[in-house]
């Protein structure tokens, strides 16, 4: 490959980044607007417009035809990749961004609203870029594009002590974890001799495991540790409850969704779960770092689920409870990730697929968790904040409609049929049970059973919330406020939670996730 094709690849990638470019440009306008006296509505409408334009552009662009664009040798030079996974994550980022903008409309004080909005737009653009990164540098920068504005987002809306402590905790631990990630990246670059992800995967795939230096396992551990912080996997989860508790509600919702999605996408890309079409996956997906990867992910998944669910049982603070719940859900998603390589090796593409289940669950998890946070934010007023579980008492009388929606989100988090959470859990556990027997015949069925036990434990604390809302009365009923944008955010999340579980929506999402997982294009040749 000469410099010519490299240079052409550099020029050609610019048009692909049009939606993110629009978003960042609007973020600049909003930042400049923050210095004027104009009210928040102008900036919120502007960014809603930008996000909606982005969604329309992405839908109009459509998922790329398989193997049309990414099959050329330029893949090994281009810093961005435009494949089906990119398209999926892009849509997820911009769609989620719409919900977050609506959600934060009335949460942030007038003085900080525009600054907050600008930071949020950059975060959304970062998630979107993360899906298209085809280079270690690009991946690292897009992850930092998510982290750096988040530090600001966490303390901007509130100036109290808890919020400052939360942002400092998140900041210090986040740079600590990104140092680990970078250390892994530096060795990865040394191993492969290139920072291009396709090139790295190709280099790893064409050398035998036994010929590699011992650095490869260091890379695996460091990368999983660094990204484990972002997805709140178990030994790296400890910051989450404190930070969520101290953060403003919209900040907690952002933290629960955007870094987690970005972390999973980065895992998919770096560990070689989704191969670019130009690279042939000889060893099978997810095996680029040797076949210990699924085992490592298995243990991570089991520990994460138990830590999240068991510790959530003791929580009284709502945000801490949802923090532990989000840790537990990261555990479920890790099951899907761990099962993916062996499922794909078995070649059962028409049946269960780990990555497809993971991507489905990511969307479902986003809809239900952000929805639950949006309900809390909608009901909170400065005079009567919703902080603890008891604050929800008597909600069914004061706000019957909102209480019903909250029950929908909670049922989805439990995994009761007719919700997106059920379909996602079904896909994940069914996938883990379908892993064919082999040398590790018992591992995955055990993992699936552990997952089901955890879903049952989780039901206890979610149902406790339902019971508080419906069976108890409050001395001081919830007041709530009339905020159409917040209600719209709740409504969109509820629609997604319901709609993605029923056939047309579910089928569409499963198809999109399957395309994004690359199952049809990069089926493992046996």
């Amino acid at each position, binding site marked *: 490959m000469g410099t010519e094709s490299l240079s052409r690849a550099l020029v050609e990638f610019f048009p692909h980044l049009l939606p993110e470019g629009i978003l960042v440009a609007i973020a600049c306008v909003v930042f400049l607007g923050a210095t004027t006296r104009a009210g928040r509505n102008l900036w919120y409408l502007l960014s809603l417009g930008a996000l909606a334009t982005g969604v329309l552009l992405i839908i109009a662009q459509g998922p790329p035809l398989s193997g049309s664009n990414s099959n050329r040798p330029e893949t090994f030079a281009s810093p961005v990749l435009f494949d089906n996974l990119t398209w999926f994550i892009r849509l997820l980022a911009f769609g989620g961004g719409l919900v977050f903008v609506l959600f934060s409309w009335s949460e942030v004080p007038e003085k900080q609203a525009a600054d907050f909005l600008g930071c949020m737009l950059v975060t959304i653009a970062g998630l979107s870029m993360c899906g298209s990164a085809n280079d270690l540098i690009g991946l690292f920068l897009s992850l930092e594009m998510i982290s750096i504005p988040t530090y600001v987002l966490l303390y901007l809306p509130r100036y109290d002590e808890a919020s400052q*402590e939360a942002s400092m905790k998140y900041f210090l631990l986040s740079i600590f974890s990104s140092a680990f990630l970078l*250390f892994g990246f530096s060795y990865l670059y040394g191993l492969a001799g290139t920072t291009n992800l396709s090139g790295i995967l190709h280099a790893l795939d064409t050398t035998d495991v036994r010929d590699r230096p011992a650095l490869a396992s260091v890379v695996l551990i460091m990368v999983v540790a660094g990204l484990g912080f972002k997805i709140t996997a178990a030994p790296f989860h400890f910051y989450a409850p404190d930070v969520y508790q101290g953060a403003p509600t919209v900040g907690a919702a952002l933290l629960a969704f955007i870094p987690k999605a970005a972390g999973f996408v980065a895992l998919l890309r770096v560990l070689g779960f989704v191969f670019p079409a130009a690279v042939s996956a000889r060893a099978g997906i997810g095996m680029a770092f040797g076949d210990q990867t699924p085992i490592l992910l298995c243990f991570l998944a089991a520990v994460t689920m138990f830590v999240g669910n068991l510790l959530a049982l003791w929580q009284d603070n709502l945000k801490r409870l949802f923090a532990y719940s989000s840790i537990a859900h990261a555990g479920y998603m890790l099951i899907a990730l761990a099962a993916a390589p062996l499922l794909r090796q078995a070649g059962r593409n028409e049946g269960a697929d780990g990555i497809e289940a993971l991507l489905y669950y990511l969307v479902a998890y986003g809809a239900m968790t952000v929805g639950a946070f949006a309900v809390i934010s909608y009901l909170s007023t400065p005079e009567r904040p919703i902080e603890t579980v008891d604050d929800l008492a008597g909600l069914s009388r004061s706000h019957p409609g909102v209480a019903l929606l909250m029950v929908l989100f909670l049922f989805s988090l439990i995994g009761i049929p007719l919700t997106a959470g059920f379909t996602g859990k079904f896909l994940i556990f069914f996938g883990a049970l379908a892993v064919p027997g082999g040398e590790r015949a018992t591992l995955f069925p055990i993992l699936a059973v552990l997952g089901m036990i955890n879903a049952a434990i989780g039901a206890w604390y979610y149902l406790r919330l339902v019971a508080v809302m419906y069976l108890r009365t409050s001395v001081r009923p919830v007041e709530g406020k009339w905020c159409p944008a917040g209600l719209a955010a709740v409504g969109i999340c509820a629609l997604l939670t319901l709609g993605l579980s029923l056939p047309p929506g579910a089928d569409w999402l499963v198809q999109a996730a399957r395309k994004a997982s690359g199952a049809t294009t990069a089926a493992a040749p046996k």
Partner: protein
Amino acid sequence: MSPLTLHDYLAVGAILFGLGMVGFLARRNLIIMFLSAEMMLQGVALNLTAFARYRGNLQGQAFVLFLLTVAACEAAIALALILMLFRRNRSLDVSLWQELREDDQPPNLDEEPLPPAPEPEPLPQLTPAGHEPVHAEPSHEEASHV
């Protein structure tokens, strides 16, 4: 003396990274913790530069450029955050920030608190040499002449 090999650079990088990690975990001053984290990043930068030389391409060095920029952005945010925290507590000790924790967990009290800072010594005064002359009250006649 044999020339430095790749392994020497990697060893120094790893040592920097390890020292930073230990510093981050062991220190309690906010600024020192942040500087330790930056030291971990510098270890990574050294790794990348050494690998770039070893592999004979510039991608590693380009990575270092971006790494330094991100580190500078983080430093700017760190300075702002640290200033904000200092204004509230008048101290940079992280153990003073324990509001967020599990309900049933007692705050982590310091068994050996730092000794109070010593009072600054009084500044010396010069002994005046000689005596200041007594100024005579200016009389009315003299004032009128001026």
